[in-house]
């Protein structure tokens, strides 16, 4: 039984993540009065890309060749180490706040190196911007998760989720503040508005798309897939640490099915909010982004000060 749960836990993120992208695109299309593609379109895209031939730049080294595999593998490991639909799984090996954050940094590191590796004009600037944003987002990210960690007296993600801060008698204000901080970081780390535009290529300020510009075929599929995995990982962190409602707290089959169901509803709500945000606001100028990230950091500091 527990093996089955672990297998679901392992494959959940890569299997469901393209769906998030599909849902967001569909909602955005509806808001723009378009029909929009089927929500399963990202799966078809991945399948198509996986079967295409590749072109690789002659300037690229092994970093460019292996970065997609490393980045994708990291998102799989992280995805398996965080609470998704059940919080009773006791993972004391890899499920620590800092471990998760720094493992995601491995992905960022190789993504930025891969962007620089082909020596084009776009990739390098994409990497520079990505590293700027992620360096400034790190403070908000660690501190927002630290707030819930302090509230639950542990930095283990499963234990935090299981402790359920809503029932532990904490006041709402710090949690809400920390969540706002976290949500800003979520948008930054997953290359969403107002930080980055996930829909266009060759826009002046593009970040994530600029770094993967030279990829094609399988490697592009892996890069896109890893980026949607990252989106789902952040959604899972946001929903299961800050609002751990409905998560399975015991190895009961009904609880688990309910947990999966609740998680999918939460994913849908997050996607809806992201899509609404992306439809209602413009991308910020690059040098206004630090203000937003510092706001996230300050919100979290206020949350930590309020928590006692």
């Amino acid at each position, binding site marked *: 039984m527990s093996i089955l749960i672990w297998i679901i836990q392992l494959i959940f993120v890569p299997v469901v993540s393209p769906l998030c992208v599909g849902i967001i695109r569909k909602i955005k299309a509806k808001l723009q009065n378009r029909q929009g593609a089927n929500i399963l379109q990202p799966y078809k895209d991945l399948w198509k890309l*996986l*079967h295409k*031939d590749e072109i*690789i*730049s*002659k*300037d690229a*080294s*092994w*970093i460019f060749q*292996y970065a997609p595999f*490393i980045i*994708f*593998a*990291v998102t799989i490991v992280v995805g398996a180490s965080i609470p998704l639909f059940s919080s009773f799984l006791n993972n*004391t*090996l*890899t499920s*620590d706040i*800092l*471990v998760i954050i*720094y493992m995601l*940094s491995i992905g960022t*590191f190789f993504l*930025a*190196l891969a962007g*620089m590796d082909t*020596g*084009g*004009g776009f990739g*390098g600037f994409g*990497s*520079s*911007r990505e*590293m*700027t944003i992620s*360096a400034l*987002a790190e*403070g908000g990210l*660690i*501190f927002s998760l*630290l707030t819930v*960690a*302090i509230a639950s*007296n542990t*930095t*283990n993600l499963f*234990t935090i989720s299981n402790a359920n801060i809503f029932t532990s008698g904490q006041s709402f204000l710090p949690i809400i503040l920390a969540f706002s901080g976290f949500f800003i970081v979520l948008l930054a780390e997953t290359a969403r508005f107002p930080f980055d535009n996930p829909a266009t290529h060759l826009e002046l300020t593009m970040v994530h798309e600029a770094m993967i510009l*030279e990829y094609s*075929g*399988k490697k592009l599929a*892996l890069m896109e897939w890893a980026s949607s995995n990252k989106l789902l990982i952040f959604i899972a962190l946001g929903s299961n640490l800050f609002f751990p409602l409905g998560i399975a707290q015991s190895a009961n089959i009904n609880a688990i099915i309910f947990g999966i169901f609740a998680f999918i509803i939460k994913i849908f709500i997050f996607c809806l909010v992201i899509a609404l945000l992306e439809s209602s606001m413009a991308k910020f100028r*690059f*040098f206004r982004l*630090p203000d937003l990230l510092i706001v996230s*950091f300050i919100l979290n*500091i206020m949350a*930590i*000060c309020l928590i*006692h």
Partner: protein
Amino acid sequence: MLEIITSQISFLILLSLFFIGAIGSLFFKKNDALSNAWSNFFAITGSLLGLIFSIFLIIKEKTLSFTFNQYSFSFFTPSFNIDMLSAFFIFIISLITLFCSIYGSSYIKHFYKKYSIGALGFFYNLFIIGMLLVVSASNGLFFLIAWEIMSIASYFLVVYDRNDKNNIKAGFLYLVMTYVGTAFIILSFLLLYKYTKSFDFAVIKSGIALIPLSVKNAIFIFSLIGFGTKAGIIPFHIWLPVAHPSAPSHVSALMSGVMIKTGIYMIIRLSLDMLQPIPLWWGLTILIIGSVSTLLGVLHALTEHDIKKLLACHSIENIGIILLGIGSSMIFYSLNMPSLALLGLIAALFHTLNHAIFKSLLFLSAGSVINEMHTRNMEKYGGLIKYMPQTAIFFLIGSMAISALPPFNGFFSEWLTFQTLFQGIMQFDPSLQWIFIIAAGSLTFTGGLALACFVKAFGSIFLARPRSANITHVKESSLSMRISMGVLALLSILFGIFSGYTTILLEKIGKNFTIFQNTPSFISTNYYKNLSIGSNFASVSTPALFILLIFAIFLVIFTFRYIINKNQKIKINDTWNCGTQLTPRMEITATGFARSIILIFKGILKPSIQHEIEYHDAESRYLPKSRTITLSVGNMYHSYFYQPLHTIINGLSLRIKNIQSGNINTYISYIFIALIIALFTVL
């Protein structure tokens, strides 16, 4: 056998090996190859012996102290006290010396016929003797002599490449700052002597209750300035980014990896051992200095495009991280939480070890690159991964370790430091909490910025297309250089995987301190080598993490390469560049990469842009002949600290000069006045 290894004889043999290496290399200075072989052979043997000696001392938890009474004077006794902390530092010194010497033996070949190899070998070995004596001396005056040997030998190593004017200037700055630091150290030792009537560390420690609090505070401030200058804390760091790059690369590795840690050693020795009990504000000061040094260190590193200066700036950052551990340890101990204090000390010691490993790895691989490219300017590199593939991997591992990416060693010491600071945030009320929030905040941003900085460094050195024509004759560095880099890279993975064991060993060293003798442990490891903090507060299993990552990467590669669409064709073609011709100038430069971060932090870094345009016709100013844009980052320590200080001292000296009239009668009257004052004070 074991008794001999851990006895004083073995330590003396160790010292004499380096001494023979030093003298011999001077003796054979006519023959470059022989003196190189001689000095490095003895340095390698000595450091191997040092490794065995220190490991056995640590494992057997033995403290070795001995004195040479026959050579003693009234204040000065050459006495040694090698407890586990000293043994730990001897371990670090020997470990890094071993690889630097192996590397050096082929690295210094390009100095043949240019400079004296004998002198290099002499000062190199003397420098190591100095460091070994510093961490083992147990008498204030003897310590100062050792400190001077270390400083002077390293000065001569900094100015070794003397044809470059900049190196001479760097050496001078280093010498001045070292002596300012030493002056403060002497002051604090004299104050200690005044109240305890001894220079002996053991006597000082037992008589510490005799010292009034105000004097103790003065001693703390003086020793913090003195040892902080050597450690490179901000604002006393100004010598570090100029002096370290000037030395030959294997010496830079030793200076950055090991020498600055002697400052850390003495800060630990004084604040957590000799001067206990200490007031709360000492720890707060160290914590603030640590936070400032980490954040500013990494920001300065981002502005550099000289590879060795960049690495030197990261030393400031890492010293800051070590100080965060020490500072929180001091705070916890002052507030009677010894378990948490022990945790902070372990974090600091672990980071000291890790930083020594990955920083020397980075300096050595940077040295290999410089050796081939003959410039330290990163803007002139590019594309080296194809020419030096192994050096590139070593540099990559070093970069990942210093950016605290798991599963490398840097991550786990930073993880421990974070956990210490988190405990501080959790345990205290807001009056003390804020300082831990600042410290943890600066550490989080430092992590992100260090990552950005090493993407910049690795990207502009090794990736994309070569930016200079020099590249054609670049080849992979020689075997001995690759071996020493490779083993250091391996160590940085191994200390990552086995960080559980290491932490337990370091805890033993911590418990060797008088103040931590019966402290209950806050760290535990279990069957899975799962390192836990507190009762289930945080835990991580480093072997599991490593295995999981490696397994996942192989699984992904296997699945997507060999199962899905395995008949895929791969074409090699140009990078797409909007249809224009690709030139190296289209790649992003190191300066360009860091530009946006520098602009975001312009309040701190004060960047400036100067345009210079030369026209064909100065009157009409239509056709520009050449344009120069100079980007620079202001040195705020110079303009806000050292320049005003210089002005004040100069002004004071000018005033004092007025009493020098040149008239002999005036001088006689001065003598008379002095005599009368002396008479009255005696009466």
